[in-house]
């Protein structure tokens, strides 16, 4: 059980991921869905960052002369995280837009009510 | 003769039919003449082709690896093609008269003609893939014929027909794929061409696949429990039911099974296995079932349909004996049943066409008003029940021979079943005759007396078929010799 003590970031990440995903799927409210989505993504970034971090090294930012690579942590995950953030931002923006459109149509944020109204208009 | 010539009789009717679809001919007379000319020419072409057979098979093209499309005229093809070619012109003659009062005759006739070509395609197919192709096409081109009247029940029947057919081919497909993978060479060879070495340790799977194939193709041959479409499909106009039930569809089902059994899987692989027993029993059940329900049915054409169900299984029973004798018997019953059943259906059609009577109990005393029709019906009835001196007896005789060849209990039982079904046939055919000729005292004569026999277009085929029935019944040897040659691979 020692591994739990050492990889607590991973555990946290996984927990967050599950929380976010369940929100995304089960929340009736659109905004909360989006929040769930963001939590989910954040969990992944945490995970990545934790993977990239190496005990007792500094961020790979050159301040006073280049030290050899063994002083720096792995920079790739950081890059990935950045990219990921960009992606997730755009996705949540799209979700927002969708939410706005839906609200204009149905004057509610509750997906169930929207469904009900949709059925009504269909028949 | 060059082998590509085989393609001509297949394409000619198809093209003609498509042309008719695109440029309809409104004047009925002109249309009939055109169609009859086409059909007759095609028949002559076929007969000529059969007499001058190309030596090698014609390779069209390949759908893919192991999927070549070839046409070939071997003995079985000769047989089936000859049968179809001889019956078709008569059938279409009959159809002209019958369809006089229907709507959308152009479409009908177009597809009727196309079906001719496709059926020939089934006959001439040189390997099982090609046969499958034409087999599927046959289903599709007969759809418009079945649905033609567009009544509710016609549409229902058509859907049923379609689902049964596709379901059947879907299962036959398995057998085809299996065979195409595990055969030495996919072309039809009498005696089968299965690569037994490759499947020696999965024999049961091969047998299972064969059973799939048998039942799959058996759907067209209306084997129990996949017979449901046939009685339902008798809502179609009579020329169609006659064709479906007597020549094109059901026969190509039986034909396909013969191909599968004798020319693909091979009898020595199948003989004496559980698969053989399964198919034999299925055929027996079908015979019993069909003839029994025929007695119960009071709708004229549906009764004949049930009779077809049982008679088709005579053929399958013969095939299921998996012996050369069986093939002979099956083929002879194929031709005999074609003749007598098409004549029976045409009689039913003539009655419906002249009197709008659909049910047996309405036929009281019609025999005196429509003598030709009912004499023809009587002859075909006797032949169906296997009366000696009529064609039906000859084929039944052969089937029994095939069954009793190996003295097995199942063989004896099958003979008993055949006799039972013969009795039932006697009951359901002769009751019609008795009604027609011996009406009860005090039947309403005035109701029937203004009816009369149809004109020669309808009568002609009837007479010809009846004569054929009697002639074969009296002197069957030439036919049997020919079939013998086929079954022993001389052709």
């Amino acid at each position, binding site marked *: 059980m020692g591994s739990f003590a050492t990889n607590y970031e991973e555990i946290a990440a996984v927990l967050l991921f599950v929380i976010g995903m369940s929100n995304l799927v089960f929340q009736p409210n659109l905004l909360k869905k989006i929040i769930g989505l963001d939590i989910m993504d954040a969990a992944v970034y945490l995970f990545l960052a934790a993977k990239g971090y190496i005990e007792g090294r500094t961020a790979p930012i050159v301040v006073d002369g280049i030290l050899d690579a063994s002083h720096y942590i792995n920079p790739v995950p950081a890059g990935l995280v950045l990219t990921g953030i960009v992606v997730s931002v755009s996705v949540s923006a799209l979700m927002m837009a969708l939410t706005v459109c839906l609200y204009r149509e149905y004057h509610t944020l509750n997906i169930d009510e929207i469904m009900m109204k949709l059925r009504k208009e269909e028949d | 003769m060059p082998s590509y010539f085989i393609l001509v009789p297949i394409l000619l009717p198809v093209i003609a039919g498509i042309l008719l679809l695109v440029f309809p001919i409104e004047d009925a007379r002109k249309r009939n003449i055109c169609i009859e000319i086409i059909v007759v020419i095609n028949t002559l072409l076929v007969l000529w082709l059969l007499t001058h057979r190309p030596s090698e098979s014609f390779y069209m093209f390949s759908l893919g690896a192991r999927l070549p499309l070839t046409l070939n005229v071997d003995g079985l093809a000769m047989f089936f093609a000859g049968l179809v070619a001889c019956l078709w012109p008569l059938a279409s003659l009959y159809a002209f008269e019958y369809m006089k009062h229907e709507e959308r005759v152009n479409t009908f006739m177009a597809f009727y003609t196309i079906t001719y070509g496709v059926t020939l395609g089934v006959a001439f197919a040189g390997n099982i893939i090609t046969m499958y192709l034409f087999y599927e096409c046959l289903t599709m081109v007969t759809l418009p014929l079945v649905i033609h009247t567009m009544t509710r029940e016609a549409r229902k029947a058509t859907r049923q027909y379609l689902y049964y057919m596709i379901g059947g081919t879907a299962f036959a497909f398995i057998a085809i794929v299996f065979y195409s993978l595990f055969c030495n060479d996919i072309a039809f060879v009498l005696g089968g061409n299965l690569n037994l070495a490759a499947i020696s340790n999965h024999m049961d799977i091969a047998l299972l696949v064969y059973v799939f194939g048998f039942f799959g193709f058996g759907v067209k041959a209306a084997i129990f429990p996949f017979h449901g479409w046939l009685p339902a499909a008798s809502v179609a106009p009579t020329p169609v039911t006659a064709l479906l039930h007597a020549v094109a569809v059901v026969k190509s089902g039986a034909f396909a099974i013969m191909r599968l059994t004798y020319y693909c899987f091979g009898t020595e692989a199948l003989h004496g296995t559980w698969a053989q027993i399964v198919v034999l029993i299925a055929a027996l059940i079908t015979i019993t079932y069909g003839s029994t329900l025929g007695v119960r049915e009071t709708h004229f054409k549906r009764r004949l349909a049930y009779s077809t169900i049982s008679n088709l299984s005579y053929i399958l029973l013969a095939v299921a004996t998996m012996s050369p004798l069986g093939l002979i018997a099956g083929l002879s019953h194929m031709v005999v049943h074609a003749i007598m059943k098409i004549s029976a259906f045409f009689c039913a059609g003539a009655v419906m066409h002249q009197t709008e009577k659909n049910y047996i109990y309405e036929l009281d005393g019609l025999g005196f008003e429509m003598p030709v029709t009912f004499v023809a019906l009587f002859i075909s009835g006797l032949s169906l029940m*296997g009366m*000696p001196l009529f064609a039906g007896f000859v084929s039944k005789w052969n089937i029994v021979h095939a069954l009793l060849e190996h003295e097995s209990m199942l063989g004896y039982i099958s003979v008993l079943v055949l*006799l*039972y079904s013969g009795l039932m046939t006697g009951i359901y055919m002769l*009751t019609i005759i*008795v009604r027609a000729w011996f*009406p009860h*005292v005090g039947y309403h004569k005035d109701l029937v007396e203004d009816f009369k026999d149809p004109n020669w277009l309808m009568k002609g085929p009837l007479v010809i078929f009846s004569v054929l029935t009697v002639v074969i019944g009296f002197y*069957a*040897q030439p036919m049997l010799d020919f079939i013998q040659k086929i079954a022993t691979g001389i052709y």
Partner: protein
Amino acid sequence: MDINNYFLIFPVLLPIFAGVLLMFLKFGKREHMQLYILAILIVDLASVGWIALQPEDTLTLSQFFIAEGLHVFFHVDMLSKIFSVLTAFVWLMVGIASFEYMAHEKNEQRFYCFYLVVGGVLSALAFSGNLLTMYVFYELMTLTSMPLVMHNLSHEAIMAGLKYLFYSVAGAFMVLFGFFLFNAEGRVLYFSPGGIINEANPPGIMLFAVFLMIVGFGTKAGMFPMHGWLPTAHPVAPAPASAVLSGVITKAGVLGIIRSVYYVAGPDMIKGTWVQYTWIILSILTIFMGSMMAYKEKVLKKRLAYSTVSQVSYILFGLSVMQPVAFVGALMHVIFHSLVKNTLFVSAGAIICKTGKTKVRQLVGIGKEMPVTMWCFTLVSLTLVGIPPTSAFVSKWYLISGALDSGVPGLSWIGPIVLLISALLTAGYLLTISIKAFLPGEDYNYAKLVNHEPTWRMLMPMIVMTALAVILGIWPAGLMKIFADIAASVL
């Protein structure tokens, strides 16, 4: 192959063609038609007689093959001669008698045309030299005699006709099974005295086949369990029809059994097997049941029909014990019973058409009104009961003595006992009629006694047949010699 052989089919074709022709002929007066029929019948009898006079086993006609193994073959031996002559003779007699009877029926002409056709078919049946031919004409007989049954087209007549048809067809198919089986054995089924298979302890299936053949032909002979049609069909048919039905056509069944058992299977094959025992038991049952039913029966013709059931089973019993003496007895009973039963039915017909009385209790004092008829009736009744020195006494004597030393365990003495009981019953159900007819009792009103005697045309046949029945009983030697020869040849 000289011309005589072709003459063989003359007595077959002549009545058939004459009958068919009759369908289309138009006669100004009934007399003309009667003359025509009379002429045909006489010529027929003459030709048959001529054939009968030819020396033994010379006439053979084997020109005609349907297919290999299917051979229509005519051959004349002693048995054929006897049956054919009997048939032709009875046909003539009943024909003459029917002229008067049919006066009060409709569609006379149709009746006679079928009457003639059946006559022809029967002689063909007698001449047929192998099972196939026999089967063909057996079926034809069924089909052509059915119209006689359903002549008056009342509902029950038609139903009776159909019942007759289906029973007979069922029987015929049972026969067919045996036929198929023997053929599969690879034997050519030309009748030969003593049987062609005739091997001790044959395979069980063969025994089963023989049994089926016995039951199948037994259908026509009204043997239990297939006797059901007989009491239904005879009463509804016109009297002449029922006369020939029970007088001759039942004997066709007997002929069939003789042929299949003694000329195909061979007695040695059956002797001592379960087949023989079941057969004996069945015939005994039939004898007993038939006479009981006759005893209970109130309607005259029905009573006669039941008596036929029991009497024909006398014959079958005689055949079943497989013992020369009994065999002779059986054959004699064939002749006698047919004479007797025809007389009975004809007189019953006379009563019906003259007085319209059908029930037994109505016949009180009828002997006063139509003495000649009733005298014949009484005489033949006595014959049938078997009072010496009348004919049936002789036949029964032979039957019983044959049965007693046939050495069949148990049944050899149960049979005779049953025969005696049924003789008593016969007396019970026939003589009571005569007694009532002549001794109506004092409350019978002699005042309004009118003479219903039919004309000579009806009386003559009765008298002739009665005379024959009696005389043959007194001087049976000639017949017996012939039968003894036959018995010797087959056993």
